[in-house]
């Protein structure tokens, strides 16, 4: 237990992210099931009014910030250092801190369910709905949103910076930028997006917090404030955020598709270029979420064109994947089932995105189930499918055990069919006049069938998830059975034992080209050529401070929510003292000696 609270090992932190993210995914999914249950028939009264709004808000927020982001961070931690041939990330301590901050924020926000009600202003928390304070002072929902996201956001930001530095500075000899595996590239770009997008929501949340707690006037029209300001700040962050989510997914697909077709990636350099271009463009399109806000035709048109432009580099990626498969020797393992299913599904979501980018038409689509359908196609059909692909692919490297392929196939088909049943009809529901965030709809307007099918689909997805949980349990109970390289992989993570030892590489490998391991295999080598002699390996010491620092902010969050500023102060003091301790006592770390390395051979201690 203490081991997990104090660990600074990126592989363990990856597992922590996986567990926490998976847990929040189940919670978010449960909320989705409840939403769909309420909407199964017209005029139902199971969850009405604010209760339903709380479900919607918490579903969106939990899924985006506390499920999708940490699941991606799980892969970033588990895989990136291994792929670049590094012993660790640049800042192991900060890495742990990032995790605990995210976790503190997530827990803080979810406790709102038991403390008078969850936030209910939508995951976008548009002001002034979000800045209105409950006159009785009992309902604090949005305060939980503000502080929970703020704390988690800091964690994500430092995580992003950490991976940026890791990828720039910690690559093994010979691992030039243009030899980096595509997953690492996408993580690199995602980290850049995190670094430059999260400050925007930090500011937005600060402003909302000031309005709510200290009676500020940012969003209050009567004192000269402007609610559209919130929308700008939120989407300056929000749009890059959705690409933060999808980029690593693209990376996973690139790895899986190429491994299982036994072919190197088609058009590697254009893939890299497309990734960078998408990242850059993602900052230039935020207004497409605000076409109906009243920006005016000029602004709307400019941002419409900019938005459409993103389709081009994304298309490049799609076709490169297709042509990687073309002429390959394709194995349909479960990982590859998910990865290949991603391609058409994501395209369906992407093209509806381009349709949304037409402002005059978006006047009809906006805030309807058409939009809900669009983003679940790109998120569930894109991101979540790729997360599953990644899980089946890297599970052996993370845990030393292979997930069951048989159960995996059941999982895949239930989830995949359920997914399309849920979200395909929603396109039409939207066009037929069903706005989103509606807890009910009137019978007699043709909306019944679509909603019913959609709910059935959600139940199927739930079943699929249960099968996956069973798969995990079954797998965890069997012997470790994964070899170093179960899939005949291309990249460095497959050159070391599964699960990876604490120090990752006994000797830092020398990289001689793109797809480093594949290159050696083709040259008839079984292993990488080492770039250094065997020597003592320096390791960072574990520390409880990241946990304590996050705990401090967690406590302080409650202080702010309930206006007990002494408590907030006390929490902050805990955090600051921990920072001092960290600064005062240098971490000298410890060494693993060469003799020990021999003993460690074949697995983690």
């Amino acid at each position, binding site marked *: 237990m203490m081991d997990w609270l104090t660990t600074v090992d990126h592989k363990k932190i990856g597992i922590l992210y996986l567990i926490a993210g998976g847990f929040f995914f189940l919670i978010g999914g449960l909320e989705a099931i409840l939403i769909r249950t309420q909407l199964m028939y017209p005029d139902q009264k199971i969850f009405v009014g604010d209760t339903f709004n709380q479900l919607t808000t918490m579903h969106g927020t939990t899924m985006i910030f506390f499920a999708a982001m940490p699941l991606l961070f799980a892969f970033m931690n588990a895989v990136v250092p291994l792929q670049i041939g590094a012993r660790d990330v640049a800042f192991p301590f900060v890495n742990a801190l990032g995790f605990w901050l995210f976790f503190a924020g997530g827990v803080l926000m979810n406790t709102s369910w038991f403390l008078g009600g969850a936030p209910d202003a939508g995951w976008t928390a548009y002001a002034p709905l979000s800045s209105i304070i409950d006159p009785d002072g009992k309902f604090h929902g949005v305060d939980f949103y503000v502080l929970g996201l703020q704390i988690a956001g800091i964690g994500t930001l430092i995580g992003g910076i950490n991976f940026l530095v890791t990828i720039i500075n910690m690559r093994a000899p010979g691992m030039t930028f243009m030899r980096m595996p595509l997953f690492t590239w996408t993580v690199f770009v995602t980290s*850049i997006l995190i670094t430059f997008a999260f400050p925007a929501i930090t500011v937005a949340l600060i402003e909302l917090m000031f309005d709510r707690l200290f009676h500020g006037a940012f969003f209050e029209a009567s004192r000269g404030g402007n609610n559209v300001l919130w929308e700008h700040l939120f989407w300056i962050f929000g749009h890059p955020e959705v690409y933060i989510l999808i980029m690593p997914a693209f990376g996973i697909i690139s790895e899986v598709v190429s491994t299982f077709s036994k072919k190197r990636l088609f058009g590697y350099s254009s893939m890299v270029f497309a990734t960078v271009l998408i990242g850059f463009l993602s*900052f230039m399109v935020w207004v497409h979420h605000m076409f109906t806000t009243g920006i005016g035709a000029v*602004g709307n048109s400019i941002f419409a064109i900019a938005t459409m432009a993103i389709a081009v580099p994304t298309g490049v990626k799609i076709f490169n994947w297709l042509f990687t498969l073309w002429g390959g020797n394709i194995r349909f393992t479960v990982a590859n089932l998910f990865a290949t299913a991603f391609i058409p599904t994501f395209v369906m979501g992407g093209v509806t995105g381009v349709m949304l980018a037409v402002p005059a038409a978006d006047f009809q689509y906006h805030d309807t189930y058409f939009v809900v359908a669009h983003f679940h196609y790109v998120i569930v059909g894109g991101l979540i499918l790729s997360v599953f692909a990644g899980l089946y692919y890297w599970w052996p490297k993370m845990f030393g055990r292979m997930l069951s392929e048989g159960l995996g196939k059941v999982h895949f088909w239930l989830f995949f069919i359920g997914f399309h049943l849920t979200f395909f009809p929603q396109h039409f529901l939207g066009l037929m006049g069903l706005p989103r965030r509606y807890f009910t709809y009137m019978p007699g307007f043709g909306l019944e069938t679509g909603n019913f099918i959609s709910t059935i689909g959600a139940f199927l997805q739930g079943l699929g998830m249960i099968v996956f949980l069973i798969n995990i349990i079954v797998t965890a109970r069997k012997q470790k059975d994964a070899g170093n390289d179960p899939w005949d992989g291309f990249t460095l993570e497959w050159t070391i034992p599964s699960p990876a030892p604490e120090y990752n590489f006994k000797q830092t490998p020398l990289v001689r080209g793109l797809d480093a391991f594949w290159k050696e295999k083709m040259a008839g080598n079984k292993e990488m050529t080492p770039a250094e002699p065997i020597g003592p390996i320096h390791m960072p010491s574990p520390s409880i401070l990241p946990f304590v620092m996050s705990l401090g902010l967690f406590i302080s969050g409650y202080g702010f929510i309930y206006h007990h500023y002494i408590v907030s102060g006390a929490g902050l003091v805990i955090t600051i003292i921990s920072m001092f301790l960290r600064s005062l006592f240098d971490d000298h770390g410890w060494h693993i000696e060469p003799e020990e390395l021999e003993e460690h051979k074949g697995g983690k201690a």
Partner: protein
Amino acid sequence: MSEHTHEAVSDESKRHKHEGPRNHNLTYIVSALLTIFAFAAVLYGQLDRTFIILFIVVLGLIQAVFQLFFWMHAKEKGHFFPVIGIAFGFFIALTAVAAAVWWMWW
């Protein structure tokens, strides 16, 4: 700490040329002058409003670049990523400001 520490070189000639106080003092004087000009332009009060605003913003930008390059060593080698990073951050900041000015001010 790690083994790299022992590669220490204490060769005076390897120090960067600008490392003398002259450049830094120069930056200081330039900054001070630019600041004074900006204040003066506003205090003088006879100039066209749009001109003053443009003028002081440009002076501010020049000063920022000066300090960035001399005091923060951004022009030295090995600062490729830092410069890109700051530039990109600045670029996004500028986009946000431009958006705010365009839609909410005029």
